[in-house]
């Protein structure tokens, strides 16, 4: 077996050193009844690269990859062009096959990129500090709510109806088991909700997504002031991080915590994971934050260097009193994010964002003229909602049969709400060509006729 270096001779000589007759005797603490002697049921013997590749490639071949057809899917996962150098660099073994930087003298590489990552996240969100990543946008959202509960010593979160349903549901799961209250506003495609009416003196935080799940972009400045007046925190969730290259960042609108899904920068779609949760806040709340933090320091010779810091918040020190149970985070996805962001730079990131918005405006204009299609979102970044004259899930399936991934039916994420059955989320990114848009317009026309 190519991954196992010991030879039979090695094994014999090692057993002699240990002073036991066989490997089985090393397992003598296992209760007799639980010792498995039969081979694993149904599993073939070891296989070479060729055979394994054949099996898995056959599964891959049964999927339609988004890049092979006109594709307009978003709803919290976005297809962007990732520069070739990103994937090349993250596959350097020194990054790929290293562990969490527990020994800083031999992991300055990881620590420095995490420090740079934290800085980039703080800059784009307009916040003071960011951590070294959490699992994804949805889990970051739940962590933010629990942090707001700690900061305010209150236990009731108000969630906007424009929050991604997965972010809402993960927060609800944590609420059920951790024990706090959640008031979730109903789905809000038109952007008309009045969140202030839901706040009382028990409210720890208000969570809004910007751009919202249905696409609208909002100025949150007044909401932030009103939330603060009630002694609560404003949490802003960003499911499409590229939007931060164009829109006033949440930090400038008064957000106390910003959580985001970082997948769009540096990371492929991967059928939903692994992704990377971004988490940023104000300096004064740093000690309430979940997750790892890298900090600057000096070494014994006075040279600048980096270490993991403020770990007295974390599970390995605080155990049941930790701010979160997270340990392994999304290190390599954070690396991909930070490399892509470094390649883009100020110019590139802003241009990418403008380009996305321009493509979406172009697509919205193209679709709005079609019979049976109405653009619902009056403002948006790269994703908007359209109302169709037929159930969106049926239309999407029809489009898929014609080789078009035409969008995400709202009913997939908000099931059971008849009023939303005709709504379709459509996204355009820099990867969509004019021909793609024509194909979608044409396909929709057919599917709706």
């Amino acid at each position, binding site marked *: 077996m190519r991954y196992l270096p010991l030879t039979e001779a090695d094994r014999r000589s090692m057993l002699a050193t240990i002073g036991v007759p066989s490997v089985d005797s090393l397992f003598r603490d296992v209760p007799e009844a639980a010792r498995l002697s039969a*081979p694993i049921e149904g599993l073939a013997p070891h296989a070479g690269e060729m055979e394994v590749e054949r099996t898995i490639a*056959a599964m891959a071949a049964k999927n339609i990859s988004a890049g092979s057809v006109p594709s307009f899917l978003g709803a919290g996962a976005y297809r962007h062009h990732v520069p070739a150098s990103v994937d090349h660099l993250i596959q350097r073994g020194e990054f790929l*096959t290293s562990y969490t930087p527990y020994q800083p003298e031999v992991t300055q590489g990881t620590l420095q990129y995490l420090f740079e990552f934290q800085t980039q996240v703080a800059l784009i969100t307009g916040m003071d500090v960011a951590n070294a990543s959490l699992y994804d946008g949805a889990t970051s959202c739940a962590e933010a709510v629990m942090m707001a509960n700690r900061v305010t010593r209150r236990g009731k979160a108000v969630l906007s109806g424009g929050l991604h349903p997965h972010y809402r549901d993960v927060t609800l799961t944590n609420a059920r088991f951790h024990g706090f209250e959640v008031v979730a506003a109903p789905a809000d495609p038109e952007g008309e909700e009045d969140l202030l009416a839901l706040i009382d003196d028990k409210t720890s935080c208000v969570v809004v997504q910007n751009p919202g799940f249905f696409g609208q972009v909002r100025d949150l400045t007044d909401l932030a002031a009103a939330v603060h007046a009630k002694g609560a925190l404003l949490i802003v969730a960003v499911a499409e991080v590229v939007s931060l290259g164009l829109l006033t960042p949440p930090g400038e609108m008064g957000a106390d915590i910003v959580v985001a899904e970082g997948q769009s920068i540096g990371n492929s779609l991967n059928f939903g*994971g692994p992704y990377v949760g971004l988490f940023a806040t104000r300096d004064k709340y740093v000690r309430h934050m979940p997750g790892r933090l890298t900090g600057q320091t000096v070494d014994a010779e006075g040279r600048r260097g980096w270490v993991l810091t403020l770990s007295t918040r974390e599970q390995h020190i605080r155990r049941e009193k930790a701010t979160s149970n997270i340990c392994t985070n999304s290190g390599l996805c954070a690396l991909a994010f930070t490399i892509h962001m470094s390649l883009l730079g100020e110019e590139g990131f802003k241009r990418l964002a403008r380009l996305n918005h321009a493509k979406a405006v172009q697509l919205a204009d193209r679709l709005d003229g079609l019979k049976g299609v109405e653009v619902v979102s009056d403002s948006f970044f790269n994703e908007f909602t359209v109302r169709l004259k037929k159930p969106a899930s049926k239309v999407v399936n029809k489009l898929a049969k014609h080789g078009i991934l035409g969008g995400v039916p709202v009913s997939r994420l908000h099931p059971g709400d008849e009023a939303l059955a005709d709504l379709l989320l459509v996204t355009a990114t820099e990867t969509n060509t004019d021909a793609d848009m024509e194909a979608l317009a044409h396909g929709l026309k057919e599917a709706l006729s």
Partner: protein
Amino acid sequence: MNTQGRKTHIDTLGVEGGNAASAAAGTISGNRALMLEEPLIFEQDSPGTTGVDLPEPPTFKPRLGKVRERGTIGLPGLSEPEVIRHYTRLSQKNFAIDSGLYPLGSCTMKHNPRLNEKLARLPGLSDIHPMQPERTVQGALELIDTLAHWLKTLTGMPAVAMSPAAGAHGELCGMAAIRAAIEDRDGSTSHRRRVLVPESAHGTNPATAAACGFTVDAIPADATGRVDLEALKAKLGDDVAAIMLTNPNTCGLFERDIIEIADAVHKAGAFFYCDGANFNAIVGRVRPADLGIDAMHINLHKTFSTPHGGGGPGSGPVVLSEALAKFVPLPYVVHGEDGFSLVESGEDDQANGKEFGRLKGFHGQMGMFVRALAYILSHGADGLRQVASDAVLNANYVMASLKDVMTASFEGPCMHEALFDDRFLKGTGVTTLDFAKAMIDEGYHPMTMYFPLVVHGAFLIEPTETESKQSLDAFIRVMRGLAERARSGDAEHFLGAPRMTPRRRLDETGAARKPVLRWVPEVSQAEAAE
């Protein structure tokens, strides 16, 4: 560079100003041949430069409503060659399994096969959107289902929840399932809220129990490094929801009484959560189902070799017993007459009605699933069993070869990792930390230190099955040499280590006292100082 203004707190360090290996000693650049100094990306800004050529969009009318376009962000501009060089240089400051033995106990730093990287990048797997119509992702659902099948087969358990993102997230999943099952059985006001956790447990165990609304009650270890069965029994009662036990445990030992423990826990009406971080020691040789376990997470990034990537991403599927099989998170894959589909909501016709909710966005760590499946198929039935055998053999070989010069904490045989404590350093003036830093100069990543907490100054050494005998012999030579050196009175050697690394010991106290968690431009630094 702002390196002034903070005093190091590494008082014990014998800093020799004229050390030949130090940057101060030598070069104009601060570089030492292949060891290259690298400033922050923010310090390499040439404004206006970019490493990505994108077209400028044609003029169009923005639809941003009342939101203004943002001003300057402050991101640096660099070209592609500069970016490549930056990260290449950073990578060279890291130790990795690819570079050498990385015996970080409990973390399972085994070889990461490159075939798995290649397969995870097939466009049919990496370039598919999680919300594509199910008809267009049948292969992806089949892959998840296939991996789920092997995880169930290898553990003997009837169900598995695939969505947790890492081990700790799997713990959350398993403990949530347990709470949901208790509430289903005893009603939502059930007072079963106490969870028994051994003192040797990983920090995520008590943290998870607390995150699930349980209180944590520590159970002591006996003299053999295992759960004290009598003490455990004494703690069981009708307010106990579960026990969270790691097996093989964090001392690297198999819990001999595990079946009796399971029986006692079940008799008391509680559930048995097993932390499966150490499943790599028994895969193919023991099925957790045969031990009476109700829920166990499997760190795919440990047992099944998906790369740790400097701290993640991971994946933590949780296998579940019959009693818990319905209390799963959403979503999950089902196989029906016309192929595979996802149950994404409790409103789905195929839902069982007892699902406890969603744990993360979308469907789980697909990229990790591909790698783990490739690993399982590559090893096959014979290879997986050999993995556990060789992992245990290697650890026992290290134990046997060091126990006369270091102090083993417990009587062997051990499983996949060997635990020593610092008794052998008594009176030498050298601590476990100092010893670890000296290992770094010898070209090794240190073992896990000071964990588990049940022994003093722990050295937890996990070589894994992917080390050759030559590699282990070289490591053993170094460890023996260092142990002898410490006892010979040469504390100085350890206190000043490491000497040959890109940075020497770092001031962690100072870092925490006045945290600097991001770069700020020079100007604002100057302003802040005023």
